[in-house]
């Protein structure tokens, strides 16, 4: 018997890639700017969706309208920004369908992907499959044949609705219901693309599944929807990397990620987010971990103007373990409001949150964490550790830990630190020939190392490079 996340439980959960091929990107299809029920229905109809999905979208749209901007737990004060929902394209399509074969992918899209290094990654066969999100829809998907033989499904979510309707319908919207928050409702209404991963019982996917996302059109919202189901005793590592060219007007990225980790299964979800600094990145990521299951979020936030993201794990079965490794870096004008939520529902569950943030110039980072232990979640153990590093005098970092414990037999540890790059450390490194900038970079790289070392090799290298670019002020 698998426990469900009831509305009650859910409620308590209070590189600069400067190129863009916009000129050549002739969208085959695009809705008009702005949002209405007609636009929502149009998206569903263009995709040829079944009625239940159309209904789901329309209902979500109305919920979005009724819902106020998030306050309370959400921290980024989104209402203070000029975010005009009517100034956004909610759907665009660059090519007709998800391509199965690299040779079918349009030439200009290939160029862009070449710059992102995807074909190289493929060649090296470091990856099990690549899903690339070009604007709203996934245009290229490949998966290794042996995984297919094992019954692993890795497709874009639109294809999944068409080809695996029973599985999708069973789980879609169960972990993050449209009524969860305004942005979840928005995503539920206009979602497009994202990945669908299904791992059958006992199957261990030994290399990471990867997807690349970009926002490539001015005022193009990106509302991908990812659903991962790990059956009993299975394992999968999903990696999502985001890069976006810079644009002058506001872009909105509002994704929903739902993960179901069944008994004894383990899922790791890694994100490196490097949106251009005009993007609002408002993402709802949530997982349910059942008996003996392990869910790990590795979440790196470098880009965007404002990020509000708190990956969460609902520990639904005994001995389930949840982990969030969060890294945030904010440079001038950026606010990273990131953190984690752990909800202990079942007894003997454990969770770890490690958060590291770096603020530079006028950048601001906030750690926002929620820890909830339900009555009956006896012998639960939770550890929270957040460290902030400030580079400049005006840099800012805040910590907002929220704790609600209804069970007496628990073990909770919380540690937090804020430090500034020290003069003595800088002098020490400079006395070894390193310039002040290089010395600072090295200190920052060392600070984030505990998170970086959890990343797949090529991502670790890329992340260090992005951090260095930010430290040089070359990004943003």
């Amino acid at each position, binding site marked *: 018997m698998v426990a469900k996340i009831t509305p009650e439980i859910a409620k308590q959960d209070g590189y600069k890639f400067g190129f863009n091929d916009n000129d050549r990107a002739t969208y085959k299809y695009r809705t008009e700017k702005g949002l209405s029920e007609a636009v929502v229905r149009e998206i569903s109809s263009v995709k040829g969706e079944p009625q239940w999905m159309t209904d789901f979208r329309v209902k979500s749209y109305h919920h979005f309208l009724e819902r106020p901007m998030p306050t309370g737990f959400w921290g980024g004060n989104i209402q203070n920004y000029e975010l005009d929902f009517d100034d956004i394209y909610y759907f665009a399509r660059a090519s007709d369908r998800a391509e199965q074969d690299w040779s079918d992918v349009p030439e200009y899209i290939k160029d862009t992907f070449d710059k992102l290094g995807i074909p190289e990654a493929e060649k090296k066969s470091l990856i099990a499959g690549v899903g690339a999100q070009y604007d709203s829809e996934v245009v290229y998907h490949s998966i290794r044949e042996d995984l297919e033989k094992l019954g692993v499904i890795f497709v874009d979510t639109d294809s999944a609705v068409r080809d695996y309707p029973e599985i999708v319908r069973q789980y879609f919207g169960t972990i993050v219901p449209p009524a969860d928050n305004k942005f979840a409702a928005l995503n539920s209404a206009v979602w497009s693309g994202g990945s669908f991963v299904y791992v059958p019982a006992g199957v261990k996917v030994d290399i990471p599944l990867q997807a690349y996302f970009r926002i490539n059109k001015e005022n193009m919202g990106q509302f991908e929807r990812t659903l991962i189901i790990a059956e009993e005793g299975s394992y999968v590592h999903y990696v999502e990397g985001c890069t976006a060219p810079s644009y002058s007007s506001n872009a909105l990225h509002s994704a929903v990620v739902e993960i179901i980790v069944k008994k004894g299964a383990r899922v790791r979800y890694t994100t490196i987010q490097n949106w251009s600094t005009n993007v609002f990145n408002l993402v709802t990521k949530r997982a349910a971990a059942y008996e003996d299951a392990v869910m790990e979020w590795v979440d790196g936030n470098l880009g965007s103007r404002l990020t509000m993201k708190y990956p969460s794990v609902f520990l639904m079965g005994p001995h389930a373990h949840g982990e969030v490794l969060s890294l945030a870096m904010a440079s001038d004008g950026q606010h990273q409001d990131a953190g984690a939520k752990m909800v202990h529902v079942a007894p003997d569950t454990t969770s770890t949150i490690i958060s590291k943030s770096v603020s530079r110039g006028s950048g601001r980072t906030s750690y926002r964490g929620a820890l909830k232990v339900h009555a009956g979640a006896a012998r639960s153990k939770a550890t929270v550790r957040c460290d902030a590093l400030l580079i400049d005098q005006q840099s800012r970092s805040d910590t907002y830990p929220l704790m609600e414990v209804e069970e007496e037999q628990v073990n909770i540890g919380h540690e937090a630190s804020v430090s500034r790059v020290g003069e003595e450390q800088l002098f020490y490194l*400079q006395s*070894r020939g390193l310039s002040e900038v*290089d010395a600072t970079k090295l200190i920052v790289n060392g600070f984030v190392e505990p998170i970086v070392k959890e990343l797949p090799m090529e991502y670790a290298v890329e992340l260090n490079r992005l951090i260095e670019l930010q430290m040089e002020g070359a990004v943003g």
Partner: protein
Amino acid sequence: MADTLLTIEGLTVSVEGKQILNGVDLAVGRGEVHAIMGPNGSGKSTLANALMGHPRYQVTGGTVRFKGEDILALSPDKRAQRGLFLAFQYPMSIPGVTMVNFLRQAMKAVRGEDVPVREFREKLFATMKLLKMDQEFARRYVNEGFSGGEKKRAEILQMGILDPDLAIMDETDSGLDIDALRTVAEGVNALTTPKLGVVLITHYQRLLNYIKPQFVHILYQGRIIESGGPELALQLEAEGYDPVIEKYAPALVAATGEKA
């Protein structure tokens, strides 16, 4: 001195508005070893830090010439690139940065060009072997969790990798056990070349038994009050600082206007 490496004249240094060095003169040539001794708080580390360019140590007067160039306007990294090295009395730890990564970057920075991986590795492991350091140290984070003695060894490892022209060692012997002292001293001797000048800051004769100085200087209240040969250190070991200080007391009174 024919081949003077470092020439300090009338150096005065303040920390937080308080004058610590009151006019230091010192000349160090290539191939020479100078020992600087003196009671706690006399200004030895201040001299070392000021020479390396620590931002908190303000040079208020005097000159420092290194290889013929006035280095006082240079940032610490530029001084290191010119061939100056300081082995710290209290080395800093840099969490998350491995020794191997740090040393590679430092070597590249000091040389001003990329160092082939192979050459770097050979030099690293040869120097570690010389200092009897386990190769595992290369993977550890810089000074993080190192024992006092391990930190001092790691400083000399850095000196070996960076191959300076002038090495200032600030109490490298403190914190070392008897065997480690010998290992490190022998390491320093092995790294010593005719081009290298050495300034050893120490409290104890035992280091000087291994690394033999030609010159010994006594720093007291921010001044070098006595200079001599190796016998001066032996005399200090036997008699302490009092006889030397007494001898200079009248001069100090005249200079500072108060009784030493």
